[in-house]
């Protein structure tokens, strides 16, 4: 797929994460953004608008986040790659339509720039507490793909990946960033327009009257068409058959919903991406993502300097979770250390996948400033000291301790 040259700003730029993410979206072919402004995601909208006239992309500021995602799903069916951007409270409001996107199997991308929560939290402060929400926030059964970038460059790259995944699996994809990454200003390299492969939409090419909007290919992904092409198709959020007609039976529920999960669960190995640092000989592995990546790398270096064999596993794709990788590492290492800017989310997944083979040490990071590796090194030492495998997560507490 060729992209409009004006949309791709090939070259090296200094951008903040939010801007890089919009460049990624344009690169991937995104031409529609519906959003409601919210801190700390505002710069995405600003960047989009600044460039939209050149790119030929449409923006609409909706009345709330509920309608923003509804509009994005609608727009996606017109054939435009669509995007919405938000932060915690807005993300919560989108939960119902995340389910609709899953049920209508509509490709679209949601950027969630996490802030400190719950409720209004602290709008300008970093947080990582929407991780589980991304997976479990809407009612009913579904699977999502969630990517967690850790730098402006990754904001650019992962947004493109997100669009590719969304088209490939016909599903909403979430890029879960955070205030720290979104506002970090760094070098971003944008390759030539054909430098990164863009997954085209999987269009139906057969006869018009033969089109079934939910007839699945072998990989359980159905084909799409655009509105206005004369296919006269019907889609519904109710449990439906291949035609998109509702059938209120448990057989149809099984027929409809189980493959929606399979299309992700059966392709886990193709979707999951992570980066390993020195895990070959590691006794302790830090599992990290997004904003905590920098400090984790710093801690690995500090600990190695002290002679402790520490490795790192950075989760690029957080959902689906790399169960197998963690289980594999658990058998080799003594303990995992998981720094998160929340009170324990991904760490419980690490606990689940370690099957009692390794200790899991949790560090609620961020209370001391997220660029300070001291606590993390102390947590590594704590993990090293622990001889027996403990039942449950071991929480490292800094001097501040519990309230």
């Amino acid at each position: 797929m060729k992209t409009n040259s004006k949309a791709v700003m090939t070259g090296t730029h200094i951008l903040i994460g939010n801007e890089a993410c919009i460049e990624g979206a344009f690169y991937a072919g995104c031409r529609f953004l519906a959003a409601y402004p919210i801190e700390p995601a505002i710069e995405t909208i600003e960047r989009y608008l600044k460039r939209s006239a050149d790119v030929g992309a449409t923006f609409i500021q909706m009345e709330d986040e509920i309608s923003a995602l509804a509009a994005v799903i609608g727009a996606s069916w017109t054939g435009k790659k669509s995007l919405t951007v938000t932060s915690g409270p807005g993300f919560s409001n989108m939960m119902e339509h995340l389910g609709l996107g899953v049920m209508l199997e509509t490709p679209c991308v949601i950027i969630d720039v996490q802030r400190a929560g719950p409720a209004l939290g602290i709008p300008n402060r970093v947080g990582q507490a929407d991780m589980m929400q991304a997976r479990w926030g809407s009612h009913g059964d579904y699977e999502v793909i969630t990517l967690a970038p850790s730098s402006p460059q990754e904001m650019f790259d992962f947004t493109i990946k997100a669009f590719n995944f969304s088209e490939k699996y016909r599903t909403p994809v979430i890029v879960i960033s955070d205030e720290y990454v979104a506002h970090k200003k760094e070098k971003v390299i944008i390759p030539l327009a054909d430098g990164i492969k863009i997954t085209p939409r999987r269009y139906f090419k057969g006869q018009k009257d033969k089109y079934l909007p939910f007839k699945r290919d072998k990989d359980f992904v159905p084909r799409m068409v655009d509105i206005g092409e004369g296919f006269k198709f019907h889609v519904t959020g109710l449990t439906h058959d291949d035609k998109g007609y509702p059938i209120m039976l448990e057989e149809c529920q099984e027929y409809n919903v189980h493959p929606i999960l399979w299309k992700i669960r059966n392709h886990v190995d193709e979707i999951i991406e992570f980066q390993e640092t020195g895990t070959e000989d590691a006794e302790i592995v830090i599992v990290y993502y997004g904003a905590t990546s920098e400090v984790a790398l710093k801690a690995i270096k500090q600990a190695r300097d002290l002679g402790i064999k520490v490795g790192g596993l950075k989760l690029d794709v957080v959902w689906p979770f790399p169960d197998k990788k963690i289980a594999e590492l658990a058998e080799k290492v003594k303990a995992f250390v998981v720094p998160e800017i929340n009170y324990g989310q991904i760490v419980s997944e690490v606990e689940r996948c370690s099957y009692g083979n390794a200790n899991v040490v949790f560090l609620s990071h961020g209370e001391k400033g997220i660029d300070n590796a001291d606590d993390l090194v102390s947590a590594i030492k704590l993990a090293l000291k622990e001889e027996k495998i403990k039942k449950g997560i071991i929480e490292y507490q800094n001097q501040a301790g519990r309230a």
Partner: protein
Amino acid sequence: MGTLKKAEKDIHPMDDLLRMDRIPHIWCPGCGIGTAVTAFAAGLAKAEIDLKKTCIVSGIGCTGRVAGYVKLDSFHTTHGRGIAFATGIQVANPDLKVIVFSGDGDLISIGGNHFIHAARRNVNMLVICINNFIYAMTGGQVAPTTPLATYATTSPFGCVEPPFNIPYLADSSGAVYVARWTALHVRRLTNSIAEALKKPGFSVIEVISPCAMYYSRINRLGDGLDMMKFYHDNTEIRHGEDTKNLDIGFQTKITVGKFVDRERPTYMDSYNKWLSGTKKD
């Protein structure tokens, strides 16, 4: 299903516009939604617009199922979000004409915010709102259109909230075309739909419709036929009437007609104007 005899199928004039493979529909005997759908299909035919470029969006509820029976690109979405969904479609591809066909509870209650905002923006779409004064799909709860002192299952001692005057709300939020008919006024409704389909901007047509299963039963108003008779005896056509005089009480006179027909730049007009402005600098 799909067992409709060929002879019947051949004579049905709406064959091209309705999904015959989904008949029989779910609506109860005496319900006015079917009539409105027929009028809509006739209106579509009459307007002579490009049906390929026309799509229909519904929310949830009895009327929410309409999208499933109309043979256009059709979307059955979440509760109250039909207009928001349609806004996305329209803005992403301005060549399309979008019709939002839904009920009073869906469009005015939970979707009230999208209703007033889409009207304010003047997004190019036609909203057909079936008003049966009650939530029928969930079994007869009080709606924002239920007249004062009327019974419903969640107002077992009579409704205590004054109802919305939908045309007035649409008018004051900025709709360019506002009309109201009942399920009895099929021909006028058809004409109105045909007219509104050609009108650029946010058009609203309210269709007063009987709910024989809940509204009539709870309030002892007889069956669908009795309601039709009531409409026959108690409606008055007053085109151009000031929308603020269009309140509906319990079994009071209903004023119908076309009330608003004005020109305002649509959302896409303003958008393009703005876009051309920004391009200069």
